[in-house]
């Protein structure tokens, strides 16, 4: 019923455009598309100088720089899973923040029930969320593949409500924590960051490289890219499209689970803790070009930097003001994102 032939046949025009974005998704960054990146880099330099002039202190600006890179790493990890799922499955996953919250609670359980170091929860969170994602794709979303975009959008929205309310039922609404026994500051050129945050950045980078290698250097990664390019063609050459869909969605949720674990030591754990990242993760995904995994990784860091430097440069406002100004500019001038394909 939901076979590739039928799916491809029902919405050929929409599929065509989305898939071209999708194939871009997983291909390497090419230098030909680097002009917008240079412009964005120049904007960051301007913002850095503005922050320096406004605060009059290298200490504050350096701190904003370090904090921006570190919080940007977490945005990258989250957005990576989101954009992977969009690029390959064409699903706008509104439940991504809820999956992150599941990762937080898995970490809490490991740290408190078992009394272990929270980082032991990392493989548990990745594996648990991977299995959860595969099951959701196989049992729920697979029936709607190739259908209209809003159908899956509504299902993931419903899933996010379901997950956060199940967490509320099981754990209550009161804040919980999974702190490290000791979380000293790490000093970098006069700026300082908690050890747990530095580990989160390192973890995010390692996982980004792993996902990149999986997509670019393994035969299964090639199958994923093939399905993203054309599900019909991939099916014809003998790739199990259903399996690729399930594993890709699992990879996406596993990214959210890993992000949840990595931020758990410095985050207040509540059932709705993931929601605060939802909007920013979508901003990052659109900036990086829908479906572009490496674009999402770099955009995450850009958003983190703009948030922190902008917060210093435009004092007395929400630090997100700078992020949304940049986002609006990108939507107006380059709607396909900084690393998106040239418009057709």
């Amino acid at each position, binding site marked *: 019923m939901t076979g590739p032939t039928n799916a491809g046949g029902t919405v050929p025009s929409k599929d065509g455009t989305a898939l071209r974005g999708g194939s871009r998704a997983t291909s390497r960054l090419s230098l030909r598309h680097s002009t917008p990146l240079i412009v964005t880099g120049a904007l960051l330099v301007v913002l850095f100088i503005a922050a320096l002039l406004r605060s009059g202190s290298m200490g504050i600006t350096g701190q904003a720089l370090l904090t921006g890179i570190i919080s940007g790493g977490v945005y990258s990890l989250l957005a990576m899973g989101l954009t992977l799922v969009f690029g390959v499955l064409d699903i706008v996953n509104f439940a991504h923040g809820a999956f992150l919250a599941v990762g937080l609670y898995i970490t809490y359980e490991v740290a408190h029930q078992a009394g272990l170091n929270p980082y032991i929860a990392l493989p548990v969170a990745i594996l648990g969320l991977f299995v959860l994602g595969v099951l959701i794709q196989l049992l729920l979303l697979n029936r709607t593949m190739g259908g209209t975009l809003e159908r899956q959008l509504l299902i993931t929205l419903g899933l996010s409500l379901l997950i956060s309310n199940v967490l509320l039922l099981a754990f*209550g609404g009161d804040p919980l924590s999974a702190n490290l026994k000791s979380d000293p500051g790490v000093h970098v050129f006069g700026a300082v960051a908690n050890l747990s945050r530095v580990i989160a950045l390192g973890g995010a980078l390692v996982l980004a490289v792993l996902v990149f290698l999986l997509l670019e250097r393994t035969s299964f990664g090639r199958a994923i890219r093939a399905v993203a390019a054309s599900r019909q063609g991939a099916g014809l050459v003998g790739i199990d499209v259903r399996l690729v869909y399930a594993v890709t969605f699992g990879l996406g949720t596993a990214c959210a689970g890993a992000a949840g674990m990595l931020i758990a030591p410095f985050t207040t754990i509540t059932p709705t803790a993931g929601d605060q990242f939802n909007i920013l993760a979508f901003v990052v995904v659109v900036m990086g070009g829908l479906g572009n995994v490496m674009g999402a990784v770099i955009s995450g860091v850009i958003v983190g930097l703009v948030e922190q430097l902008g917060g210093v440069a435009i004092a007395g406002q929400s630090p997100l003001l700078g992020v949304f100004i940049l986002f609006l500019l990108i939507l107006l001038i380059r709607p396909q994102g900084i690393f998106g394909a040239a418009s057709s």
Partner: protein
Amino acid sequence: MRTRSFVKLVAAVGSGAVLLAGCAGGDSGGSSGDAKVIKIGTLHPLSGANAGDGTQLENGVKLGIKAINDAGGIKALGGAKLELDGGDTKGTPDTGQSEAQRLVGDGVVALVGTYQSAVSANVAAVAERNKVPFVMDISGDDAILSHGYKYSFRMQPQNSRFGTTAAQYVKAISEAANRPVTKVAYLHEATAFGTGVYQAFKAEAQKSGLQMGPEITYDAASVSDLTTQIAQVKASGANVLVVSGYYRDGVLAAKAIQTVKPALDAVVGAADGAFDQPQFPTDAGSASQGYFDVNYHFDDKSADAKAFSALYKSTYKDEARTGAALAYDSVRVIAAALEKAGSTDASKVRDAIAQTSLTPLTLSDGPIKFSDKGENSTSLPVLTQVQNGAPVVVYPQSAAVKSPVYPANPGQ
């Protein structure tokens, strides 16, 4: 075929939601036809980001209703029993408004709520339009009662009073310790709550000669790191930091202060949602030591308040927060008004609430007494400090159970 299975799915999810709603509303079912039952409507965030605090408030109301009923109900009305008619605001103003409308339609005699000022502002308008008394347990924004409403009353001190008293208390305890304030840095969340408290603090500080340093703002809904903001505090050379925010960001601030280590004599919350909470020392660890907060608080010396805390703990297996006591007192205010009016007529109940005189479980300058605007004029913000892993009242002396440690050297 696929469409049909999708419809089935929606139907399944939908019926699940109805079932859940049925469970949530379970308390309100039953004998509405009985003339001897008086309904009290509650509006609290029982789901969403503030579900933890919303549940505390709802539990406070439940204990209040139980206490009145166990003592024989409303005697002036033939021993009529109180009954809870609960509504979940989900933390959003429009849901709060529609739930308020529903409860009014249900025939509740009064409303209690809502924890969030934006929600209370809408509910107060509904209450005024329908002439149903509305008692706010928690909701600080001054603006809610600035429209001349007749049917809305507020138990907690309004936000501006927290700002003003915070400035007075900071000056008093720093001078008592012979450790004058050189400069005050202020960190607050960027909406009406944080900005309102900041402005009241600044006005009082200028009057009393406290030197103000930088004002640093952040977005409470999205913030995940306050290290840069605390670096700004450090660079400003201030020796006192005042913070107005919510729970999650308060913990972030404490952790950032421990990491950046600015040379501060004290961190003082002004109506901060974290620094006076019993679980704050657990979540922030050693970073919480010595933190001050100016907020409403249990009257630790009152036997009634102690009994309430013990009852709450045995009933709900959780520490009661001060908000639960404010919700409990809200029910007592309504019950006393019913007793005094001898009627469930809304305007008579409203007039009786306006003349309330009742000793609260929270620290105060005497029995609850509402001003013409509906503000509880005897409510008293007090200064707490985290000492040995628990927040205790340290100022003013009349309410204090321990003396303040100043300078507190937070985050060292």
